[in-house]
């Protein structure tokens, strides 16, 4: 489903964020991406939903060759990928409800469907009562949960989550993890960057460890840690 062959990413200022990354993530896998700050985790994820393009190498997602994708096709590839951004990226002028329903309007869902499903996912992340608040009126953790709600609302076939529990207390974090696991059981591929040792070590899944731009470890049912 996600295949990387000798992927390199060099940013315009010369920073080499990824070096010769080779990875295959199958349909319906659950993968943790771990590594120290600045290792290249977010860069790895950004390549998948094509916020960044690889400087070198072959990358295919859901059968699309991301490097050679036509501009016109990009939106349709993205619609099958739900993304939780590390910095949330909520639209500041829209309410929590609108931020989520927006992702459904994009795929031209019907009005009734949008209403029902949006309230459903807001409930799942425990923020039904904050539907009318704009991001500035929400706490850090609440904004993060809205971002999660937006990522899952369209039932995408892949979810890419960049530290989705970074600003959440352990209890809420576990709630979110349970949610992700359930979605995973229903057949969704999940790629999640995280610093949360407890979660990784308890909810055992495949762990890909990145350090200084290279994959230093890739273990099924691995533990948190990235030193070689």
């Amino acid at each position: 489903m996600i295949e990387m062959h000798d992927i390199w990413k060099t940013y315009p200022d010369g920073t080499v964020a990824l070096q010769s990354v080779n990875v295959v993530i199958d349909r319906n896998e659950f993968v943790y991406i771990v590594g120290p700050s600045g290792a290249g985790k977010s860069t790895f994820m950004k390549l998948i939903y094509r916020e960044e393009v690889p400087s070198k190498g072959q990358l295919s997602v859901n059968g699309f060759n991301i490097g050679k994708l036509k501009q016109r096709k990009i939106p349709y590839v993205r619609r099958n990928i739900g993304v939780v951004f590390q910095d949330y990226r909520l639209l500041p002028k829209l309410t929590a409800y609108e931020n989520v329903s927006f992702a459904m309007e994009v795929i031209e869902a019907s009005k009734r469907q949008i209403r029902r499903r949006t309230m459903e996912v807001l409930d799942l992340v425990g923020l039904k009562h904050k539907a009318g608040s704009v991001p500035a009126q929400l706490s850090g953790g609440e904004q993060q949960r809205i971002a999660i709600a937006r990522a899952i609302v369209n039932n995408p076939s892949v979810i890419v989550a960049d530290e989705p529990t970074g600003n959440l207390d352990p209890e809420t974090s576990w709630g979110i993890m349970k949610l992700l696991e359930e979605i995973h059981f229903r057949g969704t591929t999940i790629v999640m960057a995280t610093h949360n040792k407890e979660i990784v070590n308890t909810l055992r899944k495949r762990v890909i460890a990145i350090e200084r731009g290279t994959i230093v470890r890739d273990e099924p049912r691995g533990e948190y840690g990235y030193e070689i």
Partner: protein
Amino acid sequence: MRFSTLVRHIREGTKNVFRNGWMSFASMGSIIVSLFILGVFMILALNVDKLASQIENQVEIRVYLQLGTEQAKIDDINRQIGRIPEVKKVTFVSKEEGLQRLKENLDPDAQSALDGYENENNPLPDAFDVEVFDPQKVADVAKQIQAINASDADQPILGVKYGQGTVEKLFKITNAVRNVGLIVVAGLAVMAMFLISTTVKMTILARRREIAIMKLVGATNSFIRWPFFVEGVLIGVFGAAVTSAILLYGYSWLIRTTQYDLGLMLIKFASMQDVGGFIAGTLLVLGALLGIWGSTVSVRKYLKV
């Protein structure tokens, strides 16, 4: 596109006008300022044009005859002038009528100065007033009339007058006014384009993040563009409506207050009927185009995410 999506775009576009409060206001401001300036110059141009054609229509040739030219000769010359193709109308002005006109042009106080010049004491020559179809041909026609003398030993034509060069001067002035006006309008149009495109770029810059997020969520380019399009039309049309209202109200005020003063000079502004519909129509179309152009064409740059 589904119908409900279209409704959504219109709703979003309208909402955005209010959501982006200041930005919308600023864009509208730019459009109003630009259209206002354009409108003022359009009104000016319409009036100059009207004035120019008024003046042009008043341009006549006066042909003076030798004192004591006989009636038969007069009729003959009348016919000869009438045969010149460019001539529209020939009117005979006898020396009595000439004196009468002169008197009417003088102050009542000064009219008595002409007493005693009536009848046989009248020093004025008989004359013709000649109107031509195309005012710019006046000099040419005058020469042709003067040439009648050549075929007549009596040299019955004393002189041909058409304002001693004032006609040429007049055309130079009206043409100069028109050309300068055109240059100024063109310059202002460029300025207006710059102004609006700047405002739009600023608006877009402020919303670049927004557009990027939309794209990352999987929105197509046209999906993003539509609400911008609606927003642009609304802002443009509303801006044009405000401008038209200000301009036409101001113009009607100008007409009303100067009516008396300028009426004395026989100068008249182009009427509201002439100006109103034309200005409002042009501005509304331009406003909508500017709004659309501003909000959609410039989005393109940021759609490549």
